[in-house]
């Protein structure tokens, strides 16, 4: 089981790389959907340790794979090409790869740094926590460097995937009402971000967030 979890967890990092780096928004969305399914599979594997996680797996399937993907697909409309990002493709690919490798290896080798219990330092939990934070940082990188509003929202989704994946190791026994509350917040946040992005597109003619410079903090 540990080997399967490890392989699936590393697949999550690969899919996040594709979500950020591919310039076709439809392919980025497909990569996100693949990541959501892999995440559901990872949570289902961890359910062998904590049966309560089956509910979290089902919640993740409904919210991340079904609802959020559907909302993102609607937001894309007919325009598949991402606005040019702030960092060129080659440089960005290298940065994401180095960022992901650094965060993952640092946290995997120093698991005790973030492990609240001795169990969280053991496999497969240490891999899970390291992957969670890697997704979070890759998502943050996408939010900072991408100009296309849909890509920025995809970055938020990656961050949230990372945060929620960590629950498998850190809070597997959370009861379902709390989990549903956490998942609902994210679905509503993505819905509102996309609604505002669409309204901005109607005003400005495109989804380029670098044009949102009227207000400067």
């Amino acid at each position: 089981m540990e080997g399967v979890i490890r392989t699936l967890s590393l697949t999550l990092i690969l899919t996040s790389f594709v979500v950020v780096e591919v310039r076709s928004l439809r392919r980025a969305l497909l990569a996100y959907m693949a990541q959501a399914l892999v995440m559901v599979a990872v949570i289902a594997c961890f359910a062998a340790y904590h049966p309560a996680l089956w509910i979290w797996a089902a919640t993740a399937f409904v919210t991340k794979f079904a609802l959020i993907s559907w909302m993102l697909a609607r937001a894309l409309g007919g325009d598949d090409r991402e606005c040019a990002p702030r960092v060129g493709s080659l440089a960005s690919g290298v940065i994401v790869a180095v960022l992901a490798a650094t965060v993952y290896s640092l946290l995997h080798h120093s698991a005790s740094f973030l492990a609240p219990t001795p169990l969280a330092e053991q496999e497969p939990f240490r891999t899970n926590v390291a992957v969670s934070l890697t997704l979070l940082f890759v998502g943050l990188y996408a939010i900072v460097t991408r100009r296309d509003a849909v890509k920025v929202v995809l970055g938020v989704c990656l961050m949230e995937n990372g945060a929620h994946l960590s629950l498998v190791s850190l809070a597997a026994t959370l009861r379902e009402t709390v989990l549903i509350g956490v998942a609902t917040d994210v679905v509503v946040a993505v819905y509102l971000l996309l609604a505002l992005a669409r309204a901005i597109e109607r005003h400005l003619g495109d989804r380029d967030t670098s044009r949102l410079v009227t207000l400067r903090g």
Partner: protein
Amino acid sequence: MSGFGWMGSAAALPLSLLGVPLLCAALIGLLRPAARAGLWVAGSALTLVLAAVQAARVTWSGPFPALGGELLVDGLAALLALLIAFVAFACSLYAAAYLPGLHSGDPDRRAALVRRLPLFQALFLILETTLLWVVMTNNIVLLWVALEATTLASALLVSFYGDARALEAGFKYLLLLTVGITSAFFGCVLLYAAAQPHLGSESALLISNLRTVAGAIPPHIALIATVLLLIGFGTKAGLAPFHPWVADAHAEAPAVMSAFLSGIIIKVPFVGLLRVWSVFGPRYPELNDTLMALGAFTLVAGGILAVTQDDLKRLFAYSSVAQVGFIAVALGTGHEFGYYAALFFLVSHALTKALLFLSAGAVAFAARDRRSLATLGGLARRLPVTALCAGAGLCSLAGLPPFSGFPAKFGVVLAAAESRAWVVMAVTLAASLFTMAYGVRVAQQVFLGAPRSPGLEEAREVPAPMWVAMLMLAAATLLLGLAPGLLDPLAGLAARMQGLP
């Protein structure tokens, strides 16, 4: 307890408080347009009455849990629920005349505004529910859920005008706060995970139980979790350097929303900090030092930014950034009096800044949307009640007696002195001078002197519901300034229960 009748049931009060605004939000869409504002005001008034009854119950009978400990109505929760309900009621009253009167010279914008009005009213009531949930929840993960829910409920209120600037402000507001508060999510989950082996999976969720196992939580986890909470909640509270969203959101939102943002929304994250800090602050003095340094930095950064603004709402927004620095400084002192001073300042500033944003809205309402200080002037004669209320707000903001700002600032300075944090105390005094400087500038350039734009001579006092709302807030700041002991039963109870030195 029997005197409260059915209200005496412990769970009934907080559940009614959460339910009334939510029910009104659900009913708004079913009513005729003319009746919607009435329902909003009536729902807010009923919520205020319930919050007052709840505060009375806590004062006389002490704190009580509800829903098996999921909700905890202690001094802090009862006081802040009353504050939220009071400011929300004032805002609903003000909005009854303010929102329908906007854009009277532009039929297209007015038609769009009237179409969106029910959404604004319903979202505002939902926002009130989420805020009340934040202050009363005792569940560490649901605290995060509720705080994020306040952001979600308020995002469309910030972008209500629907123009490019408002949409930009709304998008940035939602994005920055959602990203920022993710760090708080990790903080909440880490604390739960660390407490769970000692308390069990259900009890570990309850914040009130954290204190009992604080010593068993590994120090590095306690420190990391608390710092993550500080970043997440600090972003929402507008602490520098996490403040870039504050001015844009305040400036582009309708005045009612700006008042609620500054008065309440940037204050509720402090509930999380107040609850967690009192558990770990005494054990780890470095946390107190960090919070105090962040507060002092926020005071200076916000003060400098406020002094350089020409837009009235942006000036008040940066002023709010500076003022939350006072709360952080007081809480960072780590002792019981500092906790009390933080809570008193929080209440005082909530009333003061809600009043000032409503005054700024009244000025723009009467002066054809003008907000630039350079284009205003001489409005005291034409808007006497607004000028009187704004004057009270500016005096309170500057920390002048007899308004609540005086005991509030004095308390923070005393708390810093008691901790022998002389540098921080000097910073708070210097920041007060900044506040006085931009307060005098606003009074001079908006209300005194000669009008600096054509058409200001025709400005007329705003409709009665607007000035009544402002008078209510002004009276509250005056009352709290004259009798600061009024907060003792709840704020004192909250401070004493923390077990601080």
